[in-house]
C-alpha cells in the first residue's frame, strides 16, 4: 500500500481552535486516502496545551510549549523563539512530508514557518478569517503566495479580503470546518445521560471557548451566579481543556473540561457561549438556540461573527464587559428568549440553516487534490461518505481489515460507493462487525472475485447464511479456524456448497457438537479423489452421520 506523509502545523496558545480544525481535516484526509488505497502517515506539530485531543483522534502530535506556557515559566521569550524555529525546521525536514498543512497563520506566529515553506512538500493553508489589520501585516499576506492550495473558510458576514490577488486560482472556498458534523453527534437521550442532565431539567451550555482566555473564570462564574437560584435549569459548564481557574461545583451543575464536547450538544436546550470559531459553529450546526458573547482576541473577530448570526436570526448577542463578566440583565434578557418555545424553535431552525453542514470532508478533498490524481480522488470520494465511515466506526472495523475489504471489492466493476456501503452494512450488521468482516473475507477469498454487483450480492448472501449457522456455535476462534481450513472450491457451485454447508452446520449444532468436531467429520469424509465434488459429498455424508447419531 502506498503511503502519504502529512505534517499539520497548528499554533495555539489560549485556545484549541487551530488544532481542532487541522485534526478535523486530517481525520477526513485519512479516511479519503484509505478509500484511495493510500495510507496516510499524519504528524501534528502544535503549541496547543490541549494536544491530547490529537491522541483522542488517533493522531501523533509533537508538542512545543505555547507562548503562554513560556511566559508562565518565565523563560526568556527570545530563547524560546530561537529554539522553536529550529525545532520546527528540523522536524519538518526529518519528517519529509508530502503535504504540509498549516492553519490560520501562514508564516506561523513569529515567522517560524518561513524557512520551512521552501521544503519540496505541497503546502496547503487553511485560511480562517482574521481581523483585517492582522491580515494586512506583511508577516501574514507575504506568506500566502508560497502555498500551493489555500482553503479559505468563508464565514457568513465576512468581507472579501482581497488577499489573493495574483494567485486566486490556488484558492478554494469552503464553509466552516468542524471536528464532528451534526450527523455524528450523540442522540439527545444519550447525550443528556453522558452529561448527567436530569430528564426534566432545562439544560444550558455555558462556554468560554477552549478555557485558556484570561477572562474565562470570571465569565463562567458570573453566569453560574446568575443561575444559582434557578432550580429548573441544569448548567453544563464547558470550561474547556485549557481552563486553569478554580472549578465551579454545585447543585444542577455539570463541570466539563473534556475536549470533543460538541458530541453531546444534542442533549442541550440552550447555550451561552463565547463566539470562538469552534464553539460558535458547533453550537449552531447542532441547532442549539444560543446567545453569544465576544472575547477579545488578537486575530479573531468574534463580534463580527456574532453579528452575522444575529442578522440571520440564528443567534442572540449578549455583551460581556472587559473583564469577561456578563450582567444579570443581559443574561436575563437572553434567557427569556432562550426559554420561550417559539423563539427557541425559530433560533434553532435558523441556526441549522446558518451552518448547514460540516466542510471538513470537502477541505480534506481539496488538500489531497494537490497530490492524488483527480479521477482517483473522485472514486475515493464516492465511497468516503459520512455514512460509510459511520458504519465502519460503529462496527469497530480496524484499519487493516477495512483495507483488505476495500481491496477485495475493488475488483467488482461499476460498484458505486453507496452500493458498497449497502453491501458492507449487510456484512457488518450485528455485534462484532470487525470479526464478521474478517469472516466474510476468509470465506470470499475461496471464490473468484466478483466482477459485478450481482456476483457481489450472491457471495454476500451465501456468506450471511453460513455466518448465521456459524454464529450459533458461539466460538469465534473455532469458527475462524474452521473457515480457514474448509476446502471450499471455486470450481463447484457456490449455492450448492452454501446449502450443503448450512445443512451440515445446523445438524452439527442441533446435535450438541462443537465446531471442532464438525471439522473432524468433514475431514474424515473428505475424499480428494472426488475432485470438485469432494466437499459436497463429504458434507452430505457428514450430515448423515450426525443425524444418525441424533436419531439414537
Amino acid at each position, binding site marked *: 500500500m502506498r503511503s502519504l506523509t502529512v505534517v499539520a502545523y497548528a499554533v495555539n496558545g489560549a485556545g484549541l481552535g487551530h488544532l481542532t480544525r487541522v485534526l478535523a481535516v486530517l481525520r477526513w484526509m485519512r479516511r479519503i486516502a484509505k478509500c484511495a488505497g493510500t495510507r496516510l502517515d499524519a504528524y501534528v506539530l502544535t503549541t496547543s496545551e490541549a494536544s491530547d485531543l490529537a491522541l483522542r483522534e488517533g493522531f501523533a502530535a509533537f508538542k512545543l510549549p505555547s507562548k503562554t506556557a513560556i511566559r508562565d515559566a518565565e523563560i526568556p521569550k527570545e530563547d524560546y523563539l530561537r529554539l522553536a524555529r529550529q525545532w520546527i525546521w528540523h522536524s519538518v525536514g526529518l519528517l519529509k512530508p508530502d503535504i504540509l498543512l498549516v492553519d490560520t497563520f501562514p508564516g506561523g506566529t513569529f515567522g517560524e514557518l518561513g524557512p520551512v515553506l521552501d521544503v519540496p512538500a505541497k503546502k496547503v493553508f487553511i485560511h480562517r478569517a482574521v481581523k483585517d489589520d492582522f491580515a494586512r501585516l506583511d508577516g501574514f499576506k507575504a506568506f500566502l503566495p508560497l502555498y500551493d492550495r489555500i482553503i479559505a473558510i468563508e464565514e457568513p458576514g465576512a468581507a472579501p479580503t482581497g488577499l489573493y490577488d495574483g494567485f486566486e486560482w490556488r484558492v478554494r472556498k469552503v464553509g466552516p470546518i468542524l471536528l464532528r458534523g451534526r450527523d455524528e453527534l450523540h442522540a439527545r437521550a444519550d447525550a443528556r445521560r453522558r452529561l448527567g442532565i436530569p430528564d426534566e431539567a432545562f439544560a444550558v451550555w455555558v462556554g468560554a471557548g477552549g478555557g485558556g482566555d484570561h477572562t474565562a473564570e470570571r465569565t463562567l462564574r458570573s453566569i453560574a451566579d446568575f443561575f444559582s437560584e434557578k432550580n429548573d435549569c441544569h448548567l453544563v459548564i464547558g470550561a474547556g481543556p485549557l481552563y486553569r481557574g478554580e472549578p465551579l461545583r454545585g447543585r444542577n451543575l455539570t463541570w466539563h473540561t473534556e475536549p470533543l464536547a460538541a458530541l453531546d450538544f444534542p442533549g442541550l436546550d440552550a447555550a451561552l457561549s463565547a463566539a470562538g470559531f469552534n464553539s460558535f459553529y458547533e453550537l449552531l450546526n447542532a441547532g442549539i438556540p444560543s446567545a453569544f458573547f465576544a472575547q477579545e482576541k488578537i486575530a479573531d473577530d468574534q463580534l463580527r461573527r456574532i453579528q452575522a448570526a444575529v442578522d440571520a436570526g440564528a443567534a442572540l448577542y449578549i455583551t460581556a464587559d472587559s473583564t469577561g463578566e456578563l450582567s444579570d440583565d443581559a443574561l436575563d434578557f437572553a434567557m427569556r428568549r432562550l426559554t420561550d418555545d417559539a423563539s427557541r424553535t425559530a433560533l434553532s431552525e435558523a441556526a441549522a440553516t446558518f451552518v448547514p453542514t460540516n466542510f471538513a470532508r470537502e477541505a480534506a478533498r481539496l488538500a489531497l487534490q494537490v497530490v492524488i490524481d483527480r479521477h482517483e480522488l473522485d472514486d475515493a470520494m464516492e465511497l468516503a461518505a459520512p455514512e460509510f465511515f459511520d458504519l465502519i466506526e460503529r462496527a469497530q472495523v480496524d484499519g487493516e481489515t477495512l483495507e483488505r475489504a476495500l481491496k477485495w471489492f475493488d475488483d467488482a466493476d461499476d460498484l458505486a460507493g453507496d452500493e458498497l456501503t449497502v453491501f458492507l452494512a449487510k456484512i457488518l450488521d450485528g455485534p462484532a462487525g470487525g470479526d464478521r468482516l474478517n469472516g466474510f473475507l476468509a470465506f470470499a477469498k475461496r471464490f473468484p472475485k466478483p466482477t459485478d454487483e450481482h456476483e457481489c450480492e450472491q457471495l454476500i448472501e451465501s456468506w450471511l447464511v453460513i455466518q448465521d449457522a456459524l454464529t450459533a456455535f458461539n*466460538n469465534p476462534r473455532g469458527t475462524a*479456524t474452521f473457515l480457514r481450513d474448509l476446502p471450499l472450491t471455486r470450481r463447484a457451485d457456490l449455492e450448492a456448497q452454501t446449502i450443503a454447508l448450512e445443512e451440515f452446520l445446523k445438524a452439527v449444532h442441533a446435535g*450438541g457438537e*462443537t465446531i*471442532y*468436531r464438525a471439522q473432524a467429520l468433514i475431514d474424515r469424509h473428505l475424499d480428494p479423489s472426488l475432485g470438485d465434488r469432494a466437499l459436497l459429498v463429504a458434507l452430505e455424508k457428514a450430515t448423515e452421520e450426525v443425524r444418525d447419531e441424533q436419531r*439414537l
Partner: protein
Amino acid sequence: MNVNQFLGLASQRVAELEQSIGQLRGEYAKNDQRTVELQQVRETALTELATVNLPGLVPQAIAEVETRTGYGKFRQIDPLDYKARERVRLSQLIANIQADPNFINRDQLLDPAAGELTLKAQQAKQELDLIQSAIGRYEAEPEFVSLFERGYGTDDYQESIFSLRYYSDWRKGDEIVEKLGVEDFAVLRAAYEPLRRSRDLYAKDFQDAQAAIENVRRLIAQFNDARERLDNLAHYVLEECRTALREHLAYVDREQLFEWSKGDRVREALVKKIHGIEKQLEYMKKMTEQQFQNETRVLSEAVLKIKGKITKFGRPKNAYLTLNDAEVQAWLADPRQKLSARRERFWRDYDRVAYYDRYDYYDYTRDMLWWDLMTDGRVDGNFIPEVYDYHQQNPNYHWDSGTAQPTPSPDYGDIPGGVEVS
C-alpha cells in the same frame, strides 16, 4: 582438451546430475518415515487424552468433559441415557430377529449338506451349469449372440442392404452356419432360443436361492452383532463417546485446550505433547520441502548450464576448438559435494526438530515459539511463515537459550538504551 572430449565429459556429467535429481526424493524417505512415526505418536496421545477426559461412563466424569475440553455434546445427549436407549433398541432388535422364521430355522435352511436353501441353490446351480454347457457351443462363436439378438435370419432384422454391417453380418452368419453344420441360421435360432430361455430361468432360481441364503446369514450376523454389543454395551458406548470426543480434541485450539486443562498435570502434559508433535510435523514438512527445493534448484541449474555449453560447443563451427582445461573443469564442477555437506548440516538441524521430545518445556503463559524451543534458537526458521511472522511482529524478540525460557525484551524502538518511563 578438444571439443569432442569436452562434449563426452559434459554429457556424462549431465547424465549423473539428472540421475541425482531423479533420486533426490528418495534421499528424504527418512522424513516420510519419521512423519509416520510421529503421526502415530500423536494419534496415541489423542486417544490417551480422550481417555483421561472420559475415563468411564460415570456422571462426574461426563459432567467434567465440557469444562476440561469444551466438548458440550454430552450435555445435550447424556451417554448414560443413550446407553439405556441403546439397550432397549438392541433388546428389541434381538427379539425381532429371534421371532423371524428364517432365523429360527437357520440351521435347517443353511446346513452345508442338507440345508433347504443350500440344496435349492445347489440344484439350481447344477441345472444352470448343464444348460450352460449345451448353450456354450453357440455362444462360443463370436458375433453369434449379437446376430441372434439383432434378429438375423428373421423378418425383424433391421440392417439396411446398403450398409457395410449387412454384408459383414451375412458373412459371419454363413461362417457360423457352416462351422456348426446346419442348413441356415434359422435352424440355429430354433435350437438356441429355448436353451437360452431355460438358462435365464435357472439363473434366476439360483440367484433367488443365493439371496435367501444371504438374508439368513445377514440375520445371523445382525443377531450376533446385536448380542455382542448388548453384552458389552458399556464398553461400546464409552468407546463411541471417546471417539467423538477424540475427534473434537484433534481440532480444538491447543492454547484453549491447555487453558481448560490447567491444574491437571496429566492433561497439561498430553496437550503439550500433542501440540508439540503437530508443530514438529509442520516444521519437518517445511524443512524438507525447503531443502529439497534448494537441492533440486542447484542441480537443475547446473544441468542447464552444462547443457548450454553442450549446445554451444556442439555447433560445427566450434568442432575444432581446443578448450582450456581449467575452464572446462569449472564448467563441469560437480555441485553434489557441496550439496552433500549442506545436507549433512540439514539433517543435523532436522534431527533437532524431528526427535525433540521435551514438550513439557513449553510454557503457554509466555509468548514463545515452539521452533525456538526445539532448536534452542540456533536454527534460522524464517522460511517458516509462523516464525517469520512472529519475528516481524516482535523485532526485539530473542531466545534465551540459558534458561530454555524466552525473554522478549521490551519494545524501546531503535533507540539504544531507551527506557520507558511513566
